[in-house]
């Protein structure tokens, strides 16, 4: 009877496509929107991920997320270095500083000051120049997206494209000269501001005058030292907050989840996608069953039991579910691939496949239940009614 069930389903092309389209739409929305959400959330802590090397991040206890800088006194660095189990501890400056561009306009940049001696915390990939070039006078390294976009110079031709910032170009950071010595590839951040790397001491010169300028202390545990134990020890000894990289990423994500409307907005999109998809697919599938109710009655009269008919409907629901899900996920992947070089945040982890798969399954079960109820209650004697 499986063959008959499939032929019944696909014989009515319009209905079949309607059901598949509904499920494709639901599957697309249930993967594409969360993929953008996940991408955005990952951008919120991408800076922490990019730095990579340290085991522990030490900061003011009031810091709520990675961009919520509450500067420390420089002396805190030495206190951290004094905690047993610390292999090394390096300072890092992170702050927003206005850059004056060649055309006189200003652009806020995310300036990262690295330890002068070791340059720990530098960009993950250098595209042009070397990290060590930061030791040259007034030198900075800028990220490629910032160089191409927000820090680009206007073209001399009014209709021309902006000219990307390149090695050798200069800009002004807080009225001080900065020379570009390298271009780096970094992961885009949540705010998508250009990232400018320099040394810690130079960053403190670029930064507005403040009593305290140390943003983070980056810590490496000694070989064999349990990281969580060291984190606790740093907290207890210094009174500062200390997080492993994963904990700091989690702290940042949780801040965005709790304090911004982003999850609600995306949650609403996903819910709407689910509801609309369920409504379209459920309604069309139910209509399909209603239009075929006489055929089901004929089968029942001829000796097909409820179990057989139930199996046929479940098979039909499974098929449209799988096709719709596959198309939706495929379209989402295509969307992500086509947007890979744009500013759009997009991350499609396997968990989203499971999530949307469950959503589509729910819709199919709902649609099938509506139809099954009708078919089980069906009196085969209807076949004799004209």
């Amino acid at each position, binding site marked *: 009877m499986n063959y008959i069930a499939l032929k019944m389903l696909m*014989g009515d092309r319009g209905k079949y496509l309607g059901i598949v389209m509904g499920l494709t739409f639901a599957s697309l929305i249930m993967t594409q929107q969360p993929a953008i959400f996940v991408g955005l959330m990952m951008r919120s802590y991408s800076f922490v991920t990019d730095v990579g090397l340290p085991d522990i991040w030490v900061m003011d206890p009031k810091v709520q997320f990675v961009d919520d800088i509450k500067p420390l006194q420089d002396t805190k660095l030495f206190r951290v270095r004094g905690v047993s189990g610390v292999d090394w501890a390096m300072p890092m400056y992170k702050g927003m500083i206005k850059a004056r561009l060649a055309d006189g306009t200003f652009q806020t940049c995310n300036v990262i000051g690295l330890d002068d001696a070791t340059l720990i915390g530098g960009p993950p990939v250098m595209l042009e120049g070397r990290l060590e070039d930061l030791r040259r006078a007034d030198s900075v390294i800028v990220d490629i997206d910032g160089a191409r976009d927000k820090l680009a110079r206007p073209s001399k031709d009014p209709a021309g494209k902006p000219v990307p910032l390149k090695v050798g170009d200069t800009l002004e950071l807080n009225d001080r000269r900065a020379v570009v010595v390298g271009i780096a590839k970094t992961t885009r951040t949540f705010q998508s501001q250009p990232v400018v790397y320099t040394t810690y001491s130079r960053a403190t010169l670029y930064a507005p005058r403040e009593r305290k300028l140390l943003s983070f202390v980056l810590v490496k545990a000694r070989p064999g030292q349990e990281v969580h134990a060291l984190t606790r020890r740093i907290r207890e000894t210094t009174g500062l907050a200390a997080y492993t990289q994963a904990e700091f990423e989690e702290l940042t994500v949780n801040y965005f989840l709790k304090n911004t409307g982003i999850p609600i907005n995306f949650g609403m999109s996903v819910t709407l996608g689910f509801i609309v998809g369920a409504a379209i697919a459920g309604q069309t599938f139910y209509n399909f069953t209603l239009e075929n109710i006489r055929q089901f009655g*004929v089968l029942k009269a001829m000796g097909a039991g409820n179990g057989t008919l139930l199996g046929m409907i479940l098979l039909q629901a499974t098929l449209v579910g799988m096709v719709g899900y596959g198309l939706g996920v495929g379209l989402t992947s295509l969307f992500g691939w086509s947007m890979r070089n744009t500013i759009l945040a997009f991350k499609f982890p396997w968990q989203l496949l499971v999530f949307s798969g469950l959503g589509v399954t729910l819709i199919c079960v709902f649609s099938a239940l509506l139809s099954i109820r009708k078919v089980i209650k069906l009196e085969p*004697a209807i*076949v004799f009614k*004209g």
Partner: protein
Amino acid sequence: MGTATVAVECRGVRKTYDGSGQQVVALRGIDLDIHAGELMMLVGPSGCGKTTLISVIAGILDQDEGLCRVFGHDLLHMKDKDKLRFRAANIGFVFQTYNLLPSLTAAENVSIPMILNGISRQKAQRRAVEVLERVGLAERTGSLPSELSGGQQQRVAIARALVHGPKLIVCDEPTSALDHETGHRVMDLLKQVALDEDRALVIVTHDARIFEFADCIAQMDDGQVVKVVRSSGQS
């Protein structure tokens, strides 16, 4: 006929429908015998209970009272599963509006009863083609119902009713949607290919033009069989 096997035996069959607070008595104690090898027509005005009676005889509707035995089996007291199996194996249906599955070809439609009896699709298809050849549709086995005329569709429906060798075939107004000539051809076919000494045919009809094909006519009125006329002259 007196010594022929009784295919269907109805005694005191009563059926009442409950609808919107009103009770409608459809069958008021039907007594009727249908013999194997006999083509019986149930005739009578609309609403007299013909369709209810064949539904009871075909085992797709339970009577409220009385006995209805089909080839010795009391369908009312059968378990649902056994009744389904009995229906699948022993009863063939021909409907007024053919009721073919529109997305299946003629051969696929005809093969359904075989599949319901557990025969593999390939074997069922082969047998379906054979039966379609018997009803004169050898060339149209791969056609969809929408590609066939009314008469051809009814021939497919007859093939479907016959394919699994049922002992009883129930037909509901098989000619009412067809013109006179096609209706006669369909009845000729039914008599030729469907009727044999082990099988009975029950046809519900209004169509007086086909009464000549009946071995027996049961006249119904107001839920009762008021007259039975057999071609042998018995009543």
